[in-house]
Structures are given as structure tokens and as C-alpha cells.
């Protein structure tokens, strides 16, 4: 395990893994935009097919995708049901006082597929891009904002420091939990007050440690001449290759096609 395991990054070396993170971020955005604008059935079907091919190319086992879908099936079901009974149109059948319409079914299906596409698209992005690369990609894409005096590099420093210390915090929290358990703290007590008190015994030490850490880090950074300079090394490792350009071009083309066909 070489990288920070925040999120659901799955290590791999597929074609999709090797794409520049910016390509994946841009493509994801373009797909979501396209599908928001044009939701004709053939368009949605086409994109669903596209994403399925991408999942296949990424080498991520389908059962992992299905397992993650289980988390949102409530949402999908609810959406479908609400759309079918609340849309005005040609009635197909009656369930008590509720009317199911043909337009409702069409809209419901369409919305479910759109949600699916959003979810699968972003899941694929997170599963095939390491957190560091993702942060670098986002920072690179947001760099033009510095011309508008938005401190993009400060945000990236914040994200970078968080990535650096999340595993350390988790480890410390585990140690402190065990230490307090060794003094009788009950973390799984049925009494909610006891549970809250026990958690306070973890939170306060963690906070105190963070304050000390912040002070120490600031001194260490100053000692190495930090003045708010952006982190170039991470961004300089990102490179656009031919396949990146082609893919982005393809997505753009699809978007235009979708926009034009929606009229």
C-alpha cells in the first residue's frame, strides 16, 4: 500500500488508470453536462454503453460496481416512483388514488438512468485516480483562477496537508481509543450519555495534538523558506498524451452532438 487510501481508489494499471487525471475530470464533467441537456432515450443508452465499456477497460471487477450501486438503490427507486405517479399525462393504470402515466414512466426511467450515469461516472473517476493525482488534477485545472485573485495554491496546500495527516490521525485516534478503553471508557454502551462522554475522551486529546502539530509544522515550513509558494512538482508530473487529447475531443464532440440533437 503505497498511496493514501482515502476514498475508494483501487490500485491498477489499466488504460483508464493511466489517463491524465485532468482528462478524467474534464470527461466526467462533459458527460454529466451532456446528459443533463439531452436526455433522449437513445442518448442515455449510448452513454450508459460508453461507461460500461470504460468500466470493462478499467479492470475493476463488476461485482465491486454492483456492491457500490447497492448504496443508492433507495434513491433510484424513490425517484422512479415519484416520477411515475406525479407526472401529468396519459394515464396507464390506476393504483388507488394514484395515477401512473406513460410520460411518468418515460421520465422516471430517464431520470434513473441519468442518476446512474452521474454515479457510475464519478465512481469510475475516484476508483481509477489516486487521491494525490486527483488533487494535482484539480489544482492544475483551477490554476487560471489565480488570475482572479483566488488563492488556489493555498487550497491545494490545505488539501495536501490533510492527505498527509489523515492516516496519522486515524492511527492516533485508534491508540487513544485503546488507551481510554484501558481506563474503562465504554464506547459501545447502550447509554448514549456514556458513549458521548467516552468520545470526548478521544476528541479532546486529538484536538490538543493537532494544535501542537500545527505549531510544529509551521516552524518546520518556515525553516525551509515557505512563503506560500505553489507546489510545482506534483503538477509538473502531469502530462497530456495523445490519448488524453483524443478522448477529450471525443467527449466534446458528443456534447455538441447532444446539444444540437436536443432541439
Amino acid at each position: 500500500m503505497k498511496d493514501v487510501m482515502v476514498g475508494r481508489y483501487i490500485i491498477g494499471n489499466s488504460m483508464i488508470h493511466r489517463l491524465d487525471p485532468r482528462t478524467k475530470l474534464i470527461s466526467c464533467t462533459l458527460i454529466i453536462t451532456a446528459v443533463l441537456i439531452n436526455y433522449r432515450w437513445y442518448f442515455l443508452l449510448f452513454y450508459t454503453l460508453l461507461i460500461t465499456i470504460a468500466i470493462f477497460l478499467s479492470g475493476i471487477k463488476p461485482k465491486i460496481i454492483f456492491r457500490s450501486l447497492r448504496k443508492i438503490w433507495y434513491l433510484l427507486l424513490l425517484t422512479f416512483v415519484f416520477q411515475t405517479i406525479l407526472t401529468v399525462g396519459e394515464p396507464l393504470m390506476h393504483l388507488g388514488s394514484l395515477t401512473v402515466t406513460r410520460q411518468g414512466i418515460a421520465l422516471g426511467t430517464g431520470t434513473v438512468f441519468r442518476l446512474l450515469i452521474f454515479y457510475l461516472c464519478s465512481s469510475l473517476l475516484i476508483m481509477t485516480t489516486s487521491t494525490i493525482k486527483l488533487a494535482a488534477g484539480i489544482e492544475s485545472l483551477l490554476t487560471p483562477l489565480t488570475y482572479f485573485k483566488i488563492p488556489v495554491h493555498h487550497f491545494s496546500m490545505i488539501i495536501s496537508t490533510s492527505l498527509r495527516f489523515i492516516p496519522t490521525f486515524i492511527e492516533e485516534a485508534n491508540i487513544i481509543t485503546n488507551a481510554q478503553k484501558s481506563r474503562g471508557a465504554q464506547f459501545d454502551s447502550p447509554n448514549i450519555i456514556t458513549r458521548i462522554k467516552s468520545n470526548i475522551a478521544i476528541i479532546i486529546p486529538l484536538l490538543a495534538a493537532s494544535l501542537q502539530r500545527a505549531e510544529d509544522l509551521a516552524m518546520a515550513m518556515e525553516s525551509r523558506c515557505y512563503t506560500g509558494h505553489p507546489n510545482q512538482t506534483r503538477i509538473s508530473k502531469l502530462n497530456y498524451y495523445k490519448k488524453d487529447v483524443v478522448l477529450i475531443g471525443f467527449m466534446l464532440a458528443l456534447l455538441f452532438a447532444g446539444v444540437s440533437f436536443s432541439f
Partner: protein
Amino acid sequence: MTDHCIELVNVTKTYRNGSDAGNNEKIALNDITLTIHEGEYIGLIGMNGSGKSTLARLLNGLIKPTTGKVNVNGMDTRSPKHLMEIRRIVGMVFQNPDNQIVCPVVEEEIAFGPENLGLASDEIKRRIDWALQIVGLEELRDHAPHLLSGGQKQKLAIASVLVMLPNYLIMDEPSSMLDPLGRQELLEHLRILNNQKGIAIIFISHNLEDLIQADRLVVLDKGSIYLQGIPREVFADEAKLAAIGLEPPGLYRLINKLGKDGYDIDDHIKTVPELVEAICHLSLR
């Protein structure tokens, strides 16, 4: 004159304590004058509260003296335009290995300093390779720092400072959180950096066992210089050390006891095998 040394000239540092009427001032350092030459290996010793950490932070301009001056290779630490260069020349490694590593990847951590200096990308890449090789962490270049052992983290910290090509390296109690192996490797490393690369080492500690390889020792107590000299001399004065709660390394306590009974051991004896040899010689006379 003063181009290749760090000079403290009549330095006093006071802190104001408390916010209400009381004008409580704590004197952390009291009229200190000290010179550290390039290439030296100095041990700075003292109990907690002696002022040693304050002194360390004065050397690279993290804090400024209340009165007096600190000059680094001729540059005054109070002048803002020199601060960048001072901090490049005087590198600092801290006690807690975790709390000085900023970036989530080893390679990026080493690049942090050079990037702040505004160096070109190829130069940074070259230096990263070099620094990794010096501390022996080449295989861990893509790793996340939290996966490293304590000793490896300190090596990373050293590499992150070395990469800026400093003339002086301040180690602020670097081994107190390491296991014996990590500590041994650290001390060996510093010896090599001092001998072969000529980097001045300023090693701060309250554990005298760490400082046997130093050229010179400076003992602080309550903000003043209490004792100074080569290790052997300082270790010999057990009474004075004990008065402020310090103990010479075990080997030297033994040598001191033998000396009291009239059996003088040579000045250059620093290790167990050397002492054993010396005793054998004495017993065969």
C-alpha cells in the same frame, strides 16, 4: 573575520508572561556570546527550561533576540532580506519526526524546500535523486510518509534539509523519539555528514550519551552558559553536571572513577573496546 561562522553576540531573549497588570518577564537566554564555526560538531546540552531550544531557534532566525545580535556567515538574522538565505544555510531538524513532514509523498517532501527557493525543475529533480541517495531512501521515493518508521522519518527530514545545501545542520533533540537502532544510525549519519561533507552539526540534547562524538560541548543552565569544553573535560566534571541534573555517559563515569583512584585513562579513549585495551595495558605493567 566572521564569514564562516554563526555568531551570537551578547544575546538576551526575554518572553513576556501573563496579560494583566503583572509585568512578568521570563528570561530565556541571558547575555550569551557564542561562536560556531563551519565544520564544527557542537553539542548543546541542558535540561528542559535551560534555554537550549530558544537558542536553536535564534540560529536560523525563527525568533529574534530581544537584545544583542545573531550573525550567520555575516548576515544579521533581524534583516528580512537575508532571512531566506540564512534559512537555506542553516537547516533544522526537529524532535517529533511526524510533525515536520509536510507533504503526502516522500519525493514531494524533499522537493518542498527547493521549490520554496524557486529552483528550476531539472535542478530540483537532480537534487531529489541526490538527497534520497545520501540518506538511503531511494526505494521509498513514492511512499506516503506515515508508512515510514521513526528512524526513516528522521532520515527523510534530514534529506529534506540537505537538499537545500546547508552549511549548518541544527538537530533539535532528534533521537529522543527513536529506538536504539534508529538512534545509532542517526548518529552515524551525522558523523559522516560532518566528516565527509564538512557540514557543521549543532546537536541539541539532554542525553549526554548522544554527544560523545562532538568536538565541543556547551552546557546551558537557566539561560546562561554553565560549562564549555571538549567532551572529555565536560564529562570529567561530574559534580557540576550533577548539580543541574545531568549525568555523563556510563563509560565516562567509569573512566572518572578510575581516574579518582589514580588510574589515568588517555584522553582519546571513547569506546568500550578502547577502554578495555587501556585497562589491559595498565594491568600488564
